[in-house]
């Protein structure tokens, strides 16, 4: 397997600029980008299964249908389970206020403990600032300003999300033909380079998405096992949800951690150590994630320098908010491969001369 090319300085600047512009565009078209991304994720996750079935003699389309159907059934079961769980936890506004009150209780106990240990903390009047009215108002405003619009936006995405299984099936059965169709339009002079580009893109995306799934599995397992050991209820659900939330770099992990700590503080108001243990667990898994899991999976596959990763995340967040955070790294990885291969083609005098000669020959023969 060839080494994936790394962009030069000038190409890098262009790649960063194009990635930033695309992130902005993605934010505007998130209703279209999200199902495509989910379909790509499913495609790269399910493709090895379809390949394995095809090698064992099953027709490729039948194998793709069987795998997509299985995935649909699993998704439907998970959706029903999630709806049952949500209906048991009560209304969204009530739940939010309850969990916020739990979090407030934890903060109050922490402030009291701090004031006992460090008298200087008394001067900050931490405990007094945590009054119930503030929490109630914050909960009401949060629901009104954020939760309702987000819920409405999610409902608006539903029709396009329903396309995900269809797009995945199309990708699983037609990706080869689609690639052939695209390659057909490439002139003979650039044919091998174009194939190389497709191969690099495929390798990058496959590595990224498969790495992401492995990372999610590892993180979800660690969190679920850790939460179960601590004694948290619904450890598996909380762990898996937090692992999926971590797909949004940094922000997702914080949201996941806050969610679990709030649940611990609310369900165990007399055991603040449970919330601290959850916090400690998240910090430990974060460290494992950054120094062991991530380099083993996504980071190693994406070939993006850590400094550049952080820069792209900042740029992504600045131009496209949460969408930018979510897409910055995979998009940058893909654009880096396209940018470098295109730069190689554009600067290769021999290829360009061959292309001009081919055009002259085609013109002479009337092709």
């Amino acid at each position, binding site marked *: *397997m*060839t080494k994936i090319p790394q962009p030069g300085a000038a190409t890098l600047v262009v790649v960063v600029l194009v990635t930033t512009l695309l992130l902005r565009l993605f934010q505007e078209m998130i209703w279209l980008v999200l199902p495509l991304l989910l379909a790509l994720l499913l495609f790269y996750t399910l493709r090895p299964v379809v*390949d394995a079935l*095809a*090698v064992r003699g099953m027709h490729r389309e039948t194998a793709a249908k069987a795998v997509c159907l299985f995935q649909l059934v699993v998704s439907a079961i998970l959706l029903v389970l999630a709806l049952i769980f949500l209906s048991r936890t009560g209304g969204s506004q009530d739940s939010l206020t309850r969990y916020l009150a739990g979090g407030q209780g934890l903060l109050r106990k922490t402030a009291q403990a701090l004031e006992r240990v460090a008298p200087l903390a008394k001067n900050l009047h931490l405990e007094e600032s945590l009054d119930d009215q503030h929490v109630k108002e914050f909960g009401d405003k949060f629901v009104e300003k954020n939760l309702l619009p987000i819920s409405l936006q999610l409902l608006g995405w539903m029709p396009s999300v329903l396309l995900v299984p269809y797009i995945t099936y199309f990708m699983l059965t037609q990706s*080869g033909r689609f690639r*052939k169709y695209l*390659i*057909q339009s490439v002139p*003979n*002079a650039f*044919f*091998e380079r174009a*194939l*190389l580009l497709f*191969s690099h893109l495929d*390798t990058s995306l496959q590595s990224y998405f498969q790495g992401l799934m492995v990372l999610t599995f590892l993180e979800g397992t660690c969190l679920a096992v850790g939460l179960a050991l601590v004694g948290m209820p619904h450890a598996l659900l909380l762990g898996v949800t937090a692992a999926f939330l971590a797909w949004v770099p940094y922000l997702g992990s914080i949201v996941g951690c806050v969610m679990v700590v709030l649940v611990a503080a609310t369900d165990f108001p007399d055991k603040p150590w449970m919330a601290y243990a959850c916090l400690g667990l998240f910090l430990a898994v974060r460290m494992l994630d950054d120094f062991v899991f991530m380099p083993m999976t996504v980071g190693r596959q994406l070939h993006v320098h850590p400094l550049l990763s952080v820069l792209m995340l900042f740029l992504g967040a600045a131009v496209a908010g949460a969408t930018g955070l979510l897409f910055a790294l995979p998009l940058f990885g893909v654009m880096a491969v396209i940018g470098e291969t295109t730069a190689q083609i554009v600067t290769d005098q*021999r290829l360009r001369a*061959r292309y001009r*000669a*081919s055009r002259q*020959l*085609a013109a002479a*023969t009337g*092709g």
Partner: protein
Amino acid sequence: MVEALKSIPIFHTLNRKEIREVEELLYERVYEKDEVVFEEGDAGHGVFIVVSGRFRVNPSHGSLKSVNLEVGPGESVGELALFDEGPRSATVVASERTVAVALFQAEFATLLMKNKSIGVKVLLEIGRILSRRARQLLQDEKHAPTL
């Protein structure tokens, strides 16, 4: 296309189902007379198999000049690129309007991993072609070692 592929020596031992799997990975290209397919020194990324027409091989290396310089239907050029991405050892030009199919190295490697039966059959045929070419080369050497 299946019948055309079946008549190509590299694929003639494959059954119809296997041929269809390989066909998914082949890219058909049409070259006009005198059009360059690849040049000596280019990084090689795949093998080209002639379906109709002819390719002319123009090596600059002395010992390669004695090799059969024309390849016709069923024959192939650039097989070494399936095994490494070293520079092409000769320039290949279409002698007439030629239809060829290309098998790309990375996809060939994936096929070998996915379907070992196809891999063994195709590799054996490519091995035979390379061995025949090596013998042909050595026939013209004064002190040819036995292969």
